[in-house]
């Protein structure tokens, strides 16, 4: 089956990110195709390039990046929710005259249309809220 996840909880504030990652790994382990994780609401913070958790805690941003690398899972971040919360890639940073970018690669800024498309195109969309 084709799966997509919607994550709306901020990392380290709520369990949602851990739950979503654990579920993502189980989806892949059962032989499904996980097409994308869409980050919305405070979930966009999962894409923070500058996140630096203590070494004895799971590094959630790195874990998402690994999921992308190992299983070709797209990491799509709602651009409107991200910009409001100070998360932007190089291009947006330039456009807004900011001195640095804050979005980790390969997270990509995209619109809500992508979320709707994913939800209707995939066999299952599972939401993880805060």
């Amino acid at each position: 089956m084709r799966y997509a996840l919607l994550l709306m909880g901020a990392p380290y504030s709520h369990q949602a990110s851990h739950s979503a990652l654990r579920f993502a790994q189980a989806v892949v382990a059962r032989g499904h195709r996980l097409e994308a994780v869409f980050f919305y609401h405070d979930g966009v913070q999962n894409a923070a390039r500058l996140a630096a958790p203590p070494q004895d805690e799971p590094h959630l941003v790195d874990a998402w990046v690994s999921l992308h690398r190992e299983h070709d899972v797209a990491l799509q971040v709602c651009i409107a929710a991200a910009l409001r919360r100070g998360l932007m890639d190089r291009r947006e940073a330039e456009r807004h005259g900011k001195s640095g970018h804050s979005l980790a690669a390969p997270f990509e800024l995209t619109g809500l249309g992508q979320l709707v498309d994913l939800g209707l195109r995939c066999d299952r969309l599972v939401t993880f809220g805060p």
Partner: protein
Amino acid sequence: MSETPTADLLVILRHGPHGTSWLREGLDAALVAAAFGREVSLLFMGEGVTALLPGQGPGALGQKGSSATLEMLEMYDIRTLLVEEQALADFGLQVDDMRLTVIPLSTTGVADALKDHRLILTF
């Protein structure tokens, strides 16, 4: 056992304006889906029914509420506005208090509405 859903997207709104961004971000998802030609219904549950009260204004520092967005629903062809009857009762409100035309749903009506949509997003 499986009934085929007839509509594309049900957006469940469970928060009032101003306190959090849930209402605004939920409505944004609904508008975008509608703009892409999807058939969208809204279901106001719990505190979400207060989003439909008339007379709302800006918040602190001119914070935009969701009042203007709600006015745009018809323009986006979002006409199915469902309201949890129990929530109206919990807040002491009537259907007539709502500023837009809504369809009140009993408990079984809520479950049926969920079954009737291909995709459900809760905010």
